[in-house]
């Protein structure tokens, strides 16, 4: 997963729900240097009885915001969705650098 262009990740989930799976896996995909390289990661754990849907909110360097539906999407489709935008940003940055 390309994480270079993500500036902010906000998740909110109830770990006791099976639907929290993709949100939790997304967090585990972020590299060890994510925080030190300027990404803000905020996680809110809901209590066990809560039935609120798990949410994943991502902000990119170019200002694009993504609100991904963790309930329905698996981790693969989330990564795909994030990479789709990141690749465009990467292409732009490669052109600017070159």
């Amino acid at each position, binding site marked *: 997963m390309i994480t270079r262009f993500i500036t902010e990740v906000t998740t909110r989930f109830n*770990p*006791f*729900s*099976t639907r*929290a*799976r993709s949100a*939790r*896996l997304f*967090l*585990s995909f*972020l*590299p*060890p240097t*994510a*925080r*030190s390289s300027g990404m803000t*990661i905020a*996680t809110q*754990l809901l*209590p*066990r009885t809560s039935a609120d849907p798990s949410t994943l909110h991502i902000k990119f360097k170019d200002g694009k915001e993504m609100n991904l539906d963790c309930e329905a999407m698996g981790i693969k489709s989330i990564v795909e969705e994030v990479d789709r935008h990141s690749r465009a940003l990467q292409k732009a940055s490669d052109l600017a650098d070159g």
Partner: protein
Amino acid sequence: MHVIRQNEGGEACVRIWLPLGHGPPARAAIGDAKISNLEVGEHRSAFGGSVIVGIRLVHPTVCPIHKMPPRIRCAIPRGLGSAVNPSRISNRSAVLRLPSASAPSTTTRQYATAAAATVSGGFRLPDDYVPPTKPPTARPSDTRKSQLLRTYTSLLRSTPLILIFQHNNLTAVEWAAVRRELRIALDNVSTEGSDSADIASRAQLQVIRTRIFDVALKIVEFHDPSKVAPTTVSALTGKKVQVVYNHDLSKAAYDASKNATKGDEPLPESSSYGQISPLLIGPLALFTLPAVSPAHLAAALSILSPSPPAFPAPSKKKNPGYHDAIAQGGLQKLMLVGGRIEDKVFDLDGVKWVGGIDGGLDGLRAQLVYMLQSAGLGLTTTLEGASKSLWLTMESRRSVLEEEQNGGKEGEKKEETA
């Protein structure tokens, strides 16, 4: 026993297969037969756990025509090679393998044959013999994963307090910093040489293999070792014996854990595995305490998942190491998702509640005892009250009646009692 080589020089190479560990008795038997010109070699082979004993008959007289020098000891490596590769044996001519009549020292060889044959015949194992140190398993017992599974089941059975963390790509130095801070905090709440110091020293923060831990949880909950039916196997002597194979890698444990989660229907609410299984996703680490000690739990929570009013993080002045970049980087990546305390599953708030119990289990017990005592006191006074008032009424009534009946005899009574 096989004679594998014999030549005119008067040497015979004999190879005997014996069960493992019977080389020395065979050698002793040969020694008893007073055979002086025998050389016995022994080699442990990977072939069926047998010992190959090479015996060479060395004749003092070497054939004068061929002037053949005494052969160097070659029987053992040769024997091993053919034992490992059976096709080589079949390639040899059968004549070579049969004991030939033209052997120069027939009597000597017969001694050796007799001794070896009796020994090897007596140690044949029964076909369904199961070594007691290697019971049958449903999972391969010698793999790392299986042994890890056994570690986890024993951990789950012996550890009353487990906190489950998700760890998101911590580096090794971050783990070291987190563990260091945890150790410091746990040591602060324990006094030297007491139980609390023991608890602190055995507290652990360990990364687990999530799927194997999941299987271990299933085995711990659904496999009851006391209900496994015994199996009949042969003992070493051939006698049939009943043995119970109920270890965690056994077929019984495997079936129990598989059957419990088979099908689509969800596990019942009461099932501890059903409650905890949604937590077991992604990279996990466990914090384990060998006893339910809210003081230690509170110390660990204040480090690993600080929440200001109840479990504040140590101050920068008191513990500067906690606030350095590496430790903070590590702690930010650790996420407390739940806990398992005394077989009950708790979420973050539940864990905090347990950490907030004053005085630990003893404190709870004292509270309970006090509650029961005060309730009992009230009950006894209430129950006593009715009978007391009845007794008082009756007593007063009696004295009134007595006064009425024997009004003048008051004086006599007083004298009697005195």
